[in-house]
């Protein structure tokens, strides 16, 4: 059991899936923090029953907002050495996160490990073609803007060392937080590495996931809201 890792799971209307996600995480990690982002269903109850620490927003703020709340809670209320993020819809594998943690402990110079779907041929073929195109475009944009070598910009599977996370200054509340995290990595020169992960695109996760057209909104929000 990895007691020094806290896993933050932002969740919005995930009552059907959250218990399974928490149970899966509990096989490897002892501290699971579910941030219920103003769900209208029983996400909080299900997560609590499954054994997670639950933080509940009274209104929906967006995934970035949920992560910010989770990060603050982890930094202020716990002494965890590593803080990870994990999507609630069950598309990530717990084994990938465990391996990312191993990588981080074995490489002291690395401060953040980000999952990538574009490092192995197998994981690339698992991505639906339209989404693959949008992600590639997003990656190209991110690489150009942030001057950062990255292959997957919007992967929800990440693990941070506590000291590194405390240096982040995040202010975007929507899905654009992923670009903001990359910007912070680049601006503050935080050493990071990418790790090959697989995403299970189930019917459920695709129905819960972002529309491809949302990429343009994310881009707009990142450019406009970041500068306000």
């Amino acid at each position, binding site marked *: 059991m990895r007691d020094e890792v806290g896993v933050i799971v932002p969740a919005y209307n995930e009552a059907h899936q959250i218990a399974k996600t928490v149970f899966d995480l509990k096989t490897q990690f002892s501290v699971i923090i579910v*941030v219920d982002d103003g769900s209208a269903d029983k996400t909080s109850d299900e997560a609590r029953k499954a054994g997670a620490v639950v*933080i509940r927003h*009274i209104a929906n703020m967006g995934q970035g*907002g949920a992560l910010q709340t989770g990060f603050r809670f982890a930094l202020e*209320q716990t002494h965890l050495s590593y803080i990870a993020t994990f999507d609630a819809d069950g598309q990530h594998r717990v084994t990938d996160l465990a391996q990312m943690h191993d990588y981080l402990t074995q490489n002291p110079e690395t401060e953040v490990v980000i999952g990538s779907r574009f490092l192995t041929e197998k994981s690339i073929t698992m991505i639906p073609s339209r989404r693959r195109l949008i992600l590639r475009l997003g990656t190209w944009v991110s690489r150009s803007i942030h001057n950062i070598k990255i292959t997957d910009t919007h992967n929800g599977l990440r693990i941070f060392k506590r000291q590194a996370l405390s240096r982040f200054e995040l202010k975007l509340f929507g899905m654009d937080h992923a670009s903001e995290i990359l910007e912070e990595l680049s601006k503050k020169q935080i050493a990071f590495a990418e790790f090959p992960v697989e995403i299970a695109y189930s019917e459920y996760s695709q129905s819960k996931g972002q529309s491809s057209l949302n990429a343009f909104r994310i881009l707009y929000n990142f450019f406009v809201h970041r500068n*306000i």
Partner: protein
Amino acid sequence: MTFKFIVLGLIVFCSLAAILLRRLRLIRPLTAFAFSFLIFTILLELFFYREFDELSLFFGVENSADLLTYLSIPVLFILILKLYVNQVLNVRRVNRIITELALEDARKTLQIHRDEQ
């Protein structure tokens, strides 16, 4: 000519709306002042258009209505931008309050849990 009057009508409408919004304390005084300035210029244009035409020649524009239209575009742009920025900042403030409430609640729950242990 019709277009110019439509633009002028729109500006008058926006200005009156601004005054009303300020009366209801929904916008800041500076924003209301900017709209009032627009109203003042429009009134000048309507009642003293000959003098205003002479003034506009100074800026190299033959017709004062043209000058007013050119001037109003950046002013309106700035005002709309200001409203948009304020809206974004307000959403951010509300989100911060939601975060604080959630964290406070979680802290209390955690404390109760620790006390029980």
